[in-house]
């Protein structure tokens, strides 16, 4: 058994998966493993699929740990920990050749496959006989993992003390014992595999956050103090997180009677001077569209988060999709310029939501922030946030001179007017959903005024588009032969695919905007020039971003759509790159791959 480990573990890159009966601690076992790996100095990237059942059913939790920055949940599984036969049957096919299977031999006997390494461990009887508590089998399993793969046991111990400290010393001791029972047991078995981790390379402190948690911290950091929302998977945990934290800072969360009320309260709160937001998923977002238009025409800063799930209608509530882009950009009636941005990684959830609030305040309009189930619920290691990266912006307030004959919707060169808040003397006005003139006075029959006012509202887009260009990232080659354009949570997996393709010698580069509406036209134009083909991977059926881009560019984009409620793997994108490259190089550049710029 290893006791020593070498010091450089940059090459470590393993996928662990835990599977078993829901409600038996599978998820918390996965979480503890994740937290320990992260604290031990590894980058982590989790992935889990949820059963639709509330209780019971099959549960699993996957974590990839690496000495390098992780961009995707990985490919094949290196280590499978199966608590029962169902977990084994479900996941065995995903284990790579030479991979390791650890299983509870009290629960079942695995029909061993030749290419795999097996460690049957009597987890249940070790727990019941040595500890006297059946559920400590999870901790016994962690001890086995720790000892076998040299994941530092003291880090596990520290975590157990933290997690069970509140339940008293006896519980802590039982869990520590369970950890050592597992370690002890496996220490006496022959190690057949070569997986060894030891302490990871990262020295700096980092946080372990889900996308939704990261988003909440960013919202708090930028000054959000009012949240209104209605429960919906996969956004509810945002409301629950903020319900706990905002009151500590003098803010409040209200659970409204529906999503219309939620966005209504957000607009009311923002009108009265607070930074406010709501978060929902597809069904709730659909209900919000009328109010979003009110926010646009009355020019009220507001942040609306949509953690997308599979639609339409109730769809697949726990599964991921990028299906709400059309609705985000065009939902609602009338000519209705709002900003749509998409969060790209767990870390970006923090800074992205800060930028969303900043843009809402700066441009006085609703900002729709698209996340999705896969991003909202996966955990990753994130460097401790650096607040200086996104300085906080507040809305433009009227000066004393501007308060004399105050015009709330005054025309200005930047198309943003001074916004007073209740309590300010001389600043009274009507936040008006009817078409109105500069004072806010309704002008529902003035034809020319409507054009002027619409111009004003769209005029804000000039500056936003600049920002969209600045916030667009390019990975791989800046002027590639094969381009990829992605949005939202696919950033990491696309980056990984690009790296893999570059290693294979392809000329590939990816463009990834953060603001999707208005679009970063300058950056897109520059990127498209010189490409021979451009792939647009999206986790949806119809290619919503591709469709929006076709409106702006006469370019025959190649769509890569995945519509099974799961995120892409790097290989799926790599395969597409290779397929398209083969076409381009064979000279069979059918019109499907021709740039028509």
């Amino acid at each position, binding site marked *: 058994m290893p006791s020593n480990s070498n010091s450089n573990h940059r090459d470590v890159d393993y996928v662990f998966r835990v599977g078993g009966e829901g409600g038996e601690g599978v998820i918390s076992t996965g979480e503890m493993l994740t937290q320990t790996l992260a604290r031990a100095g590894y980058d982590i990237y989790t992935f889990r699929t949820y059963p639709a059942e509330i209780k019971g059913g099959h549960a699993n939790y996957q974590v990839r740990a690496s000495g390098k920055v992780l961009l995707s949940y990985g490919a094949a599984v290196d280590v499978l920990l199966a608590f029962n036969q169902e977990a084994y049957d479900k996941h065995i096919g995903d284990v790579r050749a030479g991979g390791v299977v650890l299983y509870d031999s009290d629960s079942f006997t695995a029909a061993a496959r030749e290419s795999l390494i097996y460690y049957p461990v009597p987890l249940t009887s070790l727990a019941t006989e040595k500890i006297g508590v059946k559920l400590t089998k999870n901790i016994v399993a962690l001890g086995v993992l720790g000892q076998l793969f040299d994941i530092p046991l003291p880090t596990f111990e520290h975590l157990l003390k933290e997690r069970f400290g509140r339940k008293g010393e006896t519980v802590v001791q039982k869990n520590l014992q369970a950890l050592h029972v597992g370690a002890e047991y496996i220490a006496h078995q022959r190690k057949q595999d070569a997986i060894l981790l030891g302490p990871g390379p990262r020295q700096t*402190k*980092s*946080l*372990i956050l889900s996308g939704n*948690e990261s988003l909440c*911290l960013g919202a*708090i*950091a930028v000054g959000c*103090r*009012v949240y*209104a929302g209605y429960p919906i998977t996969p956004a509810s945990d945002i409301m629950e997180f903020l319900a*706990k934290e905002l*009151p*500590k*800072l*003098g803010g*409040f969360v*209200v659970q*409204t*009677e*529906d999503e*219309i*009320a*939620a*966005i*209504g*309260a*957000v*607009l*009311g*709160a923002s*009108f*009265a*001077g*607070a930074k*406010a937001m709501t978060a929902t998923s597809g069904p709730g977002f659909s209900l919000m569209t*009328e*109010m979003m238009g*009110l926010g646009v025409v*009355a020019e009220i800063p507001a942040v609306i988060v949509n953690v997308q799930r599979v639609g339409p209608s109730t769809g697949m509530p726990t599964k991921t999709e990028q299906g709400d882009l059309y609705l985000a950009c065009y939902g609602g009636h009338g000519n209705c310029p709002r900003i749509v941005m998409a969060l790209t990684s767990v870390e970006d959830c923090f800074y992205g939501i800060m930028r969303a609030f900043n843009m809402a305040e700066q441009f006085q309009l609703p900002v729709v922030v698209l996340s999705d189930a896969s991003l909202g619920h996966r955990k990753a290691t994130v460097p*401790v*946030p650096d*607040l200086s990266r996104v300085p906080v912006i507040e809305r433009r307030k009227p000066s004393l001179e501007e308060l004399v004959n*105050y015009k709330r919707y005054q025309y200005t060169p930047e198309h943003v007017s001074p916004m007073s*808040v*209740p*309590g*300010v*003397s*001389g*600043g*009274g*006005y*009507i*936040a*008006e*959903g*009817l078409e109105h003139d500069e004072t806010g*006075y*309704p002008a529902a029959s003035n034809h020319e005024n409507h054009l002027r006012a619409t111009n004003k509202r769209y005029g804000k887009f000039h500056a936003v588009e600049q920002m969209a260009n600045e916030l667009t990232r390019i990975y791989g080659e800046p002027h590639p032969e094969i381009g990829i354009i992605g949005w939202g949570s696919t950033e990491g997996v696309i980056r990984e695919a690009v790296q893999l393709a570059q290693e294979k010698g392809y000329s590939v580069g990816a463009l990834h905007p953060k603001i999707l509406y208005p679009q970063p036209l300058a950056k897109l134009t520059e990127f498209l020039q010189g490409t021979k083909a451009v792939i647009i991977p999206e986790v949806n059926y119809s290619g919503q971003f591709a469709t929006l881009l076709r409106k702006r560019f006469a370019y025959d984009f190649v769509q890569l759509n995945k519509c099974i409620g799961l995120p892409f793997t790097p290989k799926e994108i790599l395969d597409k790159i290779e397929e398209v490259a083969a076409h381009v190089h064979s000279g069979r550049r059918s019109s499907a791959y021709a740039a028509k710029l």
Partner: protein
Amino acid sequence: MSTAVDAQAPTPQSYKTDEHPIWCPGCGDFGVLDSLYKSLAGAKVDPKNLVVVSGIGCSGRTPGFIKSYGFHSVHGRVLPVALGVKLANPSLTVIGVGGDGDGFAIGGGHIPHAARRNMDMTYIIMDNSTYGLTKGQYSPTSPVGFQAGSTPYGNIEQPLNPIAMLISYGASFVGQGYSGKPRELADLISRAMAHPGFAFVNVISPCITFYNTYKAIPPRLTELPADHDPSDQAKAFALALHTDRLPLGVFYQSRRPTFEEGVAEVIKKAQASGRPRLEEIFAEFS
């Protein structure tokens, strides 16, 4: 906006804006507006701390006629917007106004929750038993048999009873007024504004153009019994069920914690061990 309101001695006139009401001459809403001016002056409300939130309808235009901060929102959403205003700044005086369609039809889903929450605001429904702005269709309070554009053979749906509904939802102040009795109405609105909590005022406010009830309403108006005890919820509810008569005044009033008081309590609880710094919150996730 024109002349400033003298915060020490405001007059009803001083709350008028330059915007002239677009209402039809004889519309009941004029009476409601006048009463509101009086109540505001009586309570010496400083316009800078007053927010009037409205929905869509003829009645929804009210904020434009009152010197204040106003929010002319969308159809049926007065109460959510008011909730947000109160969350952001509990010290503001908030008055919600809208029609019976706005409040009881499209916005009806918000009323029970506003009543439960008990935020400190006044909600005035200008009840003309028709949809004024969309030209006279039947509304949730139109009587059976009501004939108009969408009910050419007469309305077959029973009208709802706003007073009974609000009492049963647990609103902490429920009153009824008539636009044709502006002095009494101003008294009622003043009492509603003084009430700490969600104060609901149903104002019968005839639509002279599409459903002229100026002759039909007055004979049905009556006073609440002199010995009526507004803290008696069951009695108030029983009185509300006699819809052949339309008693004016305060049916029901009780003092219970407001939403704002609840919010303050929660914040106190959450801050029991001080207000955390951002880094401390971050540290929970290391």
